[in-house]
């Protein structure tokens, strides 16, 4: 109706596109502020990426700093430090994936076997809780628990063993990261699998039961296949973020004693960029991470599309 009226008023002047824009004027007023926000805070910074190809001088600004071509990248890839950081990132992520990925799945399956609703609800309430805490808080809880005078070391000493320095021992730090990361998020991570399980057609279980399948076989042949699409999706997504090893966690738990095993790309960018104000090098590292991440997420999407016939976007 509105477009008809608009059409009458200025038949010759306005194209269909223009009348359509006028018709939805209100919609534009609503979403344009968000678009402006994203232009300023997400798109304008891309201009700052040029400093990865320059030698950034704070007093000269981005524009006037001299170009240095790929020097920053050459420096990074030849620096031992960066290679250590890259190795740490990939290793921590991979360990977290191997040990952490199956746990929410198994947890969801076990939870689904529980008939007592009160017990189930209690376990969910307790295990979801750490997800709502910041890593600052959770790191405080972890340090209190595994620190020199914490519960773990008190038990070890009482058993007549040597205390373990989880926070400063280069052998123990990564396992500590993996375990605490799992404890914080496994409960919450199970929700999406519980949703997948509740979506499985119950008739299948009844049919299996009639055929005499035991509960374990039902899990293997019905529950797990029913969860397959979401498991694959989560796995591929996880792989695509291999250069994210959990900044918040590492940043709030690490210390100079364990930099050689714990320093990851994001913490390195923070220290080089924000603390040492070496903007050019930090930005170059950021570009490396961004490009790899972008390639991985696009490949992940095409893989999911090929295998499961669905897309992330």
């Amino acid at each position: 109706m509105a477009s008809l009226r608009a059409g009458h008023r200025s038949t010759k002047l306005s194209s269909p596109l223009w009348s359509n824009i006028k018709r939805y004027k209100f919609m534009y007023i609503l979403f344009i502020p968000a678009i402006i926000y994203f232009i300023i805070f997400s798109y304008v910074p891309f201009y700052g990426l040029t400093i990865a190809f320059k030698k950034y001088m704070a007093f000269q600004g981005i524009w006037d700093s001299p170009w240095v071509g790929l020097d920053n990248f050459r420096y990074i890839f030849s620096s031992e430090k960066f290679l250590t950081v890259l190795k740490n990132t990939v290793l921590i992520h991979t360990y977290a994936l191997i040990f952490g990925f199956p746990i929410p799945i198994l947890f969801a399956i076990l939870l689904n076997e529980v008939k007592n609703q009160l017990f189930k609800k209690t376990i969910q309430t307790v295990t979801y809780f750490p997800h709502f805490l910041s890593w600052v808080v959770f790191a405080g809880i972890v340090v209190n628990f595994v620190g020199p005078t914490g519960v773990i070391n008190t038990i070890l000493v009482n058993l007549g063993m040597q205390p373990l320095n989880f926070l400063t021992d280069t052998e123990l730090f990564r396992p500590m990261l993996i375990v605490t990361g799992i404890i914080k998020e496994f409960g919450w991570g199970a929700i999406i699998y519980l949703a997948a399980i509740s979506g499985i057609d119950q008739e299948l279980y009844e049919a299996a039961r009639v055929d005499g399948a035991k509960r374990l076989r039902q899990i293997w042949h019905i529950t797990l296949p029913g969860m397959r699409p979401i498991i694959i999706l989560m796995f591929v997504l996880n792989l695509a973020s291999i250069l994210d090893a959990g900044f918040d966690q590492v940043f709030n738990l690490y210390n100079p004693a364990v930099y050689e095993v714990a320093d990851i790309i994001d913490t390195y960018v923070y220290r080089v960029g924000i603390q040492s104000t070496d903007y050019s090098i930090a930005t170059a590292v950021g570009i490396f991470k961004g490009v790899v991440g972008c390639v991985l997420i696009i490949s992940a999407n095409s893989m999911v599309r090929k295998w499961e016939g669905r897309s992330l976007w």
Partner: protein
Amino acid sequence: MNGAAEVTTSKMLKRRRSALGTQNPWWAQAIIYLILFVLGLITFIPILNVLAISFSEASQIRLNPMMLIPQQFTLSAYEYIFSTPILTRSFLITVMVTAVGTFFNLMFTAFAAYGLSKPKVPGYTFFTWMIILPMLIGAGLIPYYILLKNIGLIDSLWVLILGGLVSPFNFILMRNFFWSIPEGIEESASIDGASELMTLWKIILPLSKPVLATVGLFYAVGHWNDYFNGLIFINDNTKWPLQVVLRSIIIDQNMMNMGAIPQSMDPSKVVVTPENIKAAAIIFAVLPIMLCYPFLQKYFVKGIMIGSVKG
């Protein structure tokens, strides 16, 4: 409403299943309960330990660090942290940032999501992608830092509100909700002569209360737990939000930030140790989360469900 229906059907089905007798053998069931119980303990005990320490007499901590209930109950650690100005001030800053920030988050996200919920709007695909793309790629920390410096947001509390004003994920969540509202509702409102603004205000937003609550809580918890923006973009420690002060107390072990022992307290009577203070500060920062936890759990789970349906 949909969720409730699902729950009842699944409950019915479960009853039917157990009526059919597809139970695990009792020993398998016992093992399952045991494993889950242990997992629950593993997540619960470290938190309980901090809680107990925060309420215990300092001397007891060395004697019995494994406590799960307070030993010689005392509030002195809390008295200490409340008597120093910095933690209470940062608490007020965070309360304010969370309230104002969440309001702006919700307004910008809901308006953007509603404005882009009609595929007929010219440029719909382009503008939608402009919002979703930052979820997949970003310029990174340093260019963002330089931007904030150039527009004068460093050391301004606005950086805590404007950083992440609209989250692409929450945008998608809300837009999908708006999609699910039948178009007939809007049409009949416009036939009744309601303006578009009235329709949005009086009909669409009231219908969207569940999703507004979910997304609002996502944002609010995000603000409450945010230490990163404060740590990196605010150097003036009188403007630090709670999590940054907390970080300097518990991670940098920086008791100096708490200020000297206040004059109102007699130094000889100060019976708090760093362990007490850290534990009390942690509990203090977590308390609002604990108080809201029943709501948080309910609405967060809902949000994950809506998000996962879309896939």
